[in-house]
């Protein structure tokens, strides 16, 4: 088994069709547009704190392109949902609901194989491993892909879960998004390892470092990992290297700690600009395509916002789904709450 990290791949060489490449570009643009609109919604006081995807579009879209949305699962952290359009329009629609603070935002329909956003860092990695293990036990074709960050790689859950996945040969793909920063903590203060893929040595699983700004490189790495997973060869750790082209979240001011020169350099390598230029060089993308993709994404976001604003909500909704059936005590509390507020049949 090759456990040495591979070099960063930057050559765009895959056999994706022109239409697939254009589709990936559209998803990347949409991710940026959705994310920017979400940021502005927070500034307007209409949405809660959120984490812009800027800089991670290529790695999310490239990874999603390598998966089969009817068979494979994605467990995001919180930055990725806007890039998962390939898994269906419901991912964005529910994410907007989530940002508005509506509990149904965590509910995706059964055919959409995406988990709700995860706030507690790295805790979704054991879930992905357990899910993949369960799929294997039930002879289901498919795998689970989990996103987490360079900061999350310092959590015990990462080490425990990656080790566990290796021992069980679980069909799981561990995508470590190295965007240079964990809020204000640079990767240099996160680890002494030469790179994050190197940590795969400890688990006896393959580890690769990929240019996370290149969606084709990401597509290829995840395709390889998926092939291994489905063949019963177990997990793969993929370190997707990129740069966070914005604040950690709407609550963060990166000018306090990001070196301006470093940020300016990273902006020069904006994955959207790079991929757009590459597609134009191939003659399969134009300025008109760009404008149309942005406008379409903006419309989609507008509809998602309008839908979210119209989604009804009961004040007693937080009593639901604690258990399959409420305990007598919880049911009593709900009755009292509804009486207090004159809701429904509680009076």
């Amino acid at each position: 088994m090759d456990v040495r990290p591979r070099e960063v791949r930057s050559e765009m060489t895959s056999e994706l069709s022109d239409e697939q490449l254009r589709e990936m570009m559209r998803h990347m643009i949409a991710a940026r547009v959705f994310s920017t609109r979400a940021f502005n919604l927070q500034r307007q006081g209409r949405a809660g704190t959120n984490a812009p995807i800027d800089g991670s579009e290529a790695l999310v879209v490239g990874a999603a392109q390598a998966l089969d949305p009817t068979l494979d699962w994605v467990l995001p952290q919180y930055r990725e949902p806007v890039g998962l359009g390939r898994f269906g329009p419901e991912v964005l629609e529910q994410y907007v609901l989530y940002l508005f603070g509506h509990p149904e935002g965590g509910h995706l329909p059964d055919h959409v194989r995406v988990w709700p956003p995860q706030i507690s860092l790295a805790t979704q990695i054991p879930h992905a491993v357990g899910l993949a293990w369960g799929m294997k036990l039930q002879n289901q074709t498919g795998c689970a892909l989990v996103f987490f960050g360079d900061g999350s790689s310092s959590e015990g859950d990462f080490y425990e879960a990656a080790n566990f996945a290796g021992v069980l040969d679980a069909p799981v793909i561990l995508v470590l998004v190295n965007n240079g920063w964990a809020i204000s903590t640079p990767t240099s203060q996160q680890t002494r390892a030469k790179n994050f893929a190197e940590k795969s040595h400890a688990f006896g699983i393959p580890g690769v470092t990929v240019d996370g700004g290149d969606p084709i490189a990401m597509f290829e790495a995840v395709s390889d990992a998926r092939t291994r997973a489905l063949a019963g060869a177990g997990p793969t750790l993929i370190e997707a290297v990129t740069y966070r082209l914005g604040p950690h979240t709407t609550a963060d001011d990166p000018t306090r700690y990001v070196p301006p020169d470093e940020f300016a350099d990273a902006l020069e390598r904006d994955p959207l600009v790079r991929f757009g230029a590459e597609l134009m060089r191939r003659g399969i993308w134009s300025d008109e395509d760009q404008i149309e993709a942005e406008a379409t994404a903006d419309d989609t976001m507008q509809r998602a916002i309008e839908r979210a604003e119209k989604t009804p909500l009961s004040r007693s909704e937080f009593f639901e789904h604690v258990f399959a059936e409420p305990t007598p005590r919880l049911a009593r509390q709900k009755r009292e709450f509804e009486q207090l507020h004159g809701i429904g049949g509680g009076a």
Partner: protein
Amino acid sequence: MLEAINAALHAEMERDERVIVFGEDVGINGGVFRATEGLFDTFGGERVVDTPLAEGVIAGAAVGLAASGMIAVPEIQFLGFSYQAFHQIAGQMARLRYRSRGRFGGAITLRAPFGGGVRTPELHSDSLEGQFANVAGLKVVMPASAADAKGLLTTAIRDPDPVMFLEPLRGYRMIRDEVPDGEHLVPFGVANTVVEGSDVVIIAWSYMVELSKRAAHLLADEGTSARVLDLRTLVPLDTEAIASAVEDCGRVVVVQEAPETNGFASEVIATINDDAFYSLEAPVQRVSGYDAPYPVGMLEDDYVPDVDRIVAAVRRAVNAQ
């Protein structure tokens, strides 16, 4: 009690092939107490799995397994080690149904022995039921008899929600009673009067029920009729049985092994305050561990509640004017 737990595991694995048992040393070794004895031979290494030594991912993987459609029955070797899994149990397992709005259930029964009295090393004896009962989304089940261990474990494995199934370490071999053959289910949320009595009710759970029964028998000799109410499950809680017992007896002692402050006994007393305050004829007495970490062997007999302390508390309750 151990045989009853083992029998329930065998029966449920036989009944439903989605049931998977995993944890540290549960496979070939059959568990350090032999609770999972024979499962590996009967059901094989795919369904009875020795895991790496990592409580956090044992609990966390259970969440993913349950979401995949399996019925997860993880074991934490000693409940005190679940501190290393608390973030997964409280932060994740308890709320996946809630955050996914019912899409992903939590068919998980997490088994763990707990409690003192057998000279274990540090952190093997902690009673954490109050902490779990304070986590919305978890059920907390604490059998006090072998028959209940079988019946409640069977119910737990068939329950669609995460259940903390806490087994009294001292009771594994010291609690012996008739266990019904064949399928045996005990519903959650139904307390059990294990000793009849009318002067005072002793409310307890898990191994403290065993001690309370002994106390009741001693008290009978001095003419005090003490009832013993075994709560069986803390979540859901049989508040009606508590209120009814208080109405009948008027005097109450609540016994727990955990430290006094913010233990589940406090919740029981608050429930009495809510539902049966005017039936009280005396202040409710509480017997518990102390607000010190569970001590090592040479001191534990003075720390953990015993029959004498329960008897003394009953006398205080009965003699109060």
